[in-house]
């Protein structure tokens, strides 16, 4: 039994015994990108882009979140099962937001004041 376990551990060096080793350079590049995007979102908020202010702010926030999930949280190097769980989580969040949105924007005048 002991031999079996030792054998099994020795046979699975691919993913590493505990997680994928990412190079430090990747971490620093992602860190730089996150800081730059933070500065960009503040600059973009100061400009009048009409309806696109919110779109730009959300696009930048989503980009930052994806970078953190893929690289800092190592999902890029994870198994398909982890991918499915993560994608499923965000899918249900999007459903929650979209279905609520579709309710409120179809309630007719008086509910929303587009300005």
């Amino acid at each position, binding site marked *: *039994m*002991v031999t079996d*376990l*030792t054998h*099994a*551990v020795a*046979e*699975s060096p691919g*993913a590493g*015994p*505990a*997680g994928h*080793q*990412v190079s*430090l350079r990747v*971490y*620093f590049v992602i*860190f730089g990108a*996150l*800081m730059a995007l*933070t500065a960009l*979102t*503040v600059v973009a*908020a*100061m400009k*009048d*882009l009409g309806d696109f*202010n*919110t779109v730009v*702010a*959300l696009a*930048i*926030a989503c980009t*930052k*979140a994806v970078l*953190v*999930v893929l690289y*800092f*949280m*190592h999902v890029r190097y994870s198994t398909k*099962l*982890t991918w499915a*769980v*993560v994608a*499923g*989580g*965000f899918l*249900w*969040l999007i459903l*929650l*937001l979209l279905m*609520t*949105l579709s309710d*409120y*924007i179809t309630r007719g005048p008086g*509910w*929303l*004041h*587009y*300005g």
Partner: protein
Amino acid sequence: MAATHAHEPSALQHHFDNLGQQFEASSLGMWLFLVTEILFFGGLFTAYMVYRMTYPEAFAEASHHLNIVLGGTNTAVLICSSLTMVMAVYAAQQGDRHRQVLFLVLTMVLGMVFLGVKSVEYSHKFAEGLVPGPDFRFEGDAIHAQLFFSLYFVMTGLHALHMIIGIGIMAVLTVFAWRGRYTARYHTPVEISGLYWHFVDIVWIFLFPLLYLIDRHGAGG
């Protein structure tokens, strides 16, 4: 099973084939928890979305009472803490005990800086009468500005609570890391606590633009 592994007696639990499989199971379990957290905060983001669409002017006015410099600083502080967190995981993977402890402590310190700045912001809000309730003072659409500040306090408050829990987890990890419990082959707790820390960072990545940066161009800076 009385038999122990040749090198690490406690690392591999008997119901797993190997450390790789054990790590995948732990990581997946943490992600399942984080998915419930995504939807937990998701409810608040949904409420925010509905009320901001319904009262855009009041939300923009109220948003201009938040301090962009403090909010932006805190965003940078959290991103730095995410970097120190991955550095701690990296050090654990290298089996470098001292760097592991160093980066865990740095992560905790940055987390406390965030909470410190947040408490300064909260005290400003109390002083300015921007806390929802009988003492709420607001020139303009006060009723709906209160909605904004209710969401502001609940969302940032719950986020701060997650930060406090995160700092507690880091403190425990630091003690264990100091004692040499985590090695290059077994450091799953460091990795999955890192997942939690990064998740809390992601929540703030959305809170900052949504709460602080509404229609700022109209406010003249």
